[in-house]
């Protein structure tokens, strides 16, 4: 398959791994920010072919995992309003709120429907004119422009029974917050490829410059990841800290200006709560005043009490890269994919779920 199979070639992977082993002298700790990378690194056994002094740690880039309990509670609350249909990406269904989950609500009679695209949610709105369709907007810059495009399509078509409950988040402010926190020990970032397909590379320049930490934007196939690590190691060995693109076939320095324009036409940055990281200034997206008619927060009373994290759950520390699932007392015992306590075990791209599936006991 074009642009896929050539990046899965085992012999090429071995050669690149040899290259890394040949040039790498200094110990290094790289954070893969994105949950899709976390899973790919496990699935392809990348850790096993790297030098022992190179460590890979997982970061906060799983949108489901960083969604605050309170935001799940709001989604559950809106689903309990009569004549509301909740449309959501499947990933959110099983995430526990403070007392329920969307899946439980569905089994109790709430109309919760899984969709592949926001455009599917718009179809549901068209077909159910007497009901109100609320789409749960989660995801990073890869996903949020698609939600913005759906809002614009709804506006153009005069669809007035569609709204978005936005928990969208932005990656660069989170990376900045991790470094500003001072507890994270990291030598470089494996930056999420598809986020930069939209935003380009400029938002990482301050990270590289201010914290002298190399950032390489990397694709998701095994060759991509190995080459990205090679590029990071090259910078570390040379004492450099630059922003580079490994994932050339999908990322340009300027990103996708049309997607950015669409995104910021509908949304504006707002302070947002991240599970484990607290409130990060200007790290979330709220619908602009002009699009209030499509803002579920403005359409419904969705105030919910503050929700504490589940006792003993270390998802917060894991999302900040300061602990691994192995450090958590609940991991594999009270917390499993069948009965997840925290969100990192729920999402297939969560760090705990990936460790559970791929790491040895």
């Amino acid at each position, binding site marked *: *398959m*074009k*642009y*896929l199979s050539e990046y899965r070639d085992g012999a*090429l992977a071995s*050669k*690149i791994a040899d*290259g890394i082993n040949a040039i790498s002298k200094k110990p290094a700790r790289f954070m893969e920010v*994105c*949950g*899709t990378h976390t899973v790919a690194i496990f699935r392809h056994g990348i850790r096993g072919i790297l030098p022992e002094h190179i460590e890979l740690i997982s970061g906060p*880039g*799983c*949108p*489901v995992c960083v969604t605050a309990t309170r935001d799940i509670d709001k989604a559950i609350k809106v689903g309990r309003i009569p004549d509301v249909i909740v449309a959501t*990406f499947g*990933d959110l269904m099983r995430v526990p709120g403070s007392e329920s989950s969307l899946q439980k609500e569905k089994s109790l009679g709430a109309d919760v429907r899984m969709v*592949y*695209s*926001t*455009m*599917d949610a718009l179809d549901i709105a068209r077909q159910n004119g007497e009901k109100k369709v609320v789409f749960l907007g*989660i*995801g*990073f810059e*890869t*996903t949020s*422009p*698609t939600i*913005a*495009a759906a809002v*614009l*399509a709804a506006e153009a078509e005069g669809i007035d029974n569609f709204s978005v409950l936005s928990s969208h988040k932005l990656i660069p402010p989170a990376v900045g917050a991790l470094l500003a926190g001072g507890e994270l020990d990291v030598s470089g970032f494996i930056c*999420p*490829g*598809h*986020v930069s*397909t*939209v935003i380009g590379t400029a938002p990482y320049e301050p990270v590289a410059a201010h914290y002298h930490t190399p950032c390489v934007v990397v694709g*998701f196939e095994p060759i991509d990841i190995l*080459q990205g690590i*090679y590029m990071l190691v090259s910078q570390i060995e040379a004492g450099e800290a630059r922003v580079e693109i*490994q*994932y*050339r*076939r*999908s*990322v*340009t320095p300027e990103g*996708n*200006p*049309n*997607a950015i324009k*669409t995104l910021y036409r509908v949304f504006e940055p707002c302070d947002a709560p991240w599970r484990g990281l607290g409130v990060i200034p200007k790290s979330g997206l709220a619908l602009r005043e002009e699009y209030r008619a499509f803002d579920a927060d403005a359409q419904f009373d969705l105030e919910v009490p503050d929700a504490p994290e589940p006792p003993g759950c270390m998802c917060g520390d894991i999302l900040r890269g300061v602990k691994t699932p192995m450090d958590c007392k609940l991991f594999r015992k009270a917390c499993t994919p069948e009965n997840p306590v925290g969100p990192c075990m729920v*999402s297939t*791209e969560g760090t705990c779920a990936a460790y559970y599936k791929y790491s040895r006991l």
Partner: protein
Amino acid sequence: MCLAVPMEVIEIDGQNARVGLGGVVRDIRLDILDERPEIGDYVIVHAGFALHRIDPEDARITLQLWKEMGAIDEVPE
């Protein structure tokens, strides 16, 4: 959740397109694309939208890097 895949454009109708990959066919939107694709182009698809048209020349830069690393002998055509 940031999974996206390269798919080949099979049909285009305004902002709608049909794309395919290994026998899988999907209908997607082109609203947020940076440049309009043509039939036969590959686009990166995420959640029902094309995010990027792949420029074969950009893809070749990666292959060039493999060559510089000594991982391949020649950049394939």
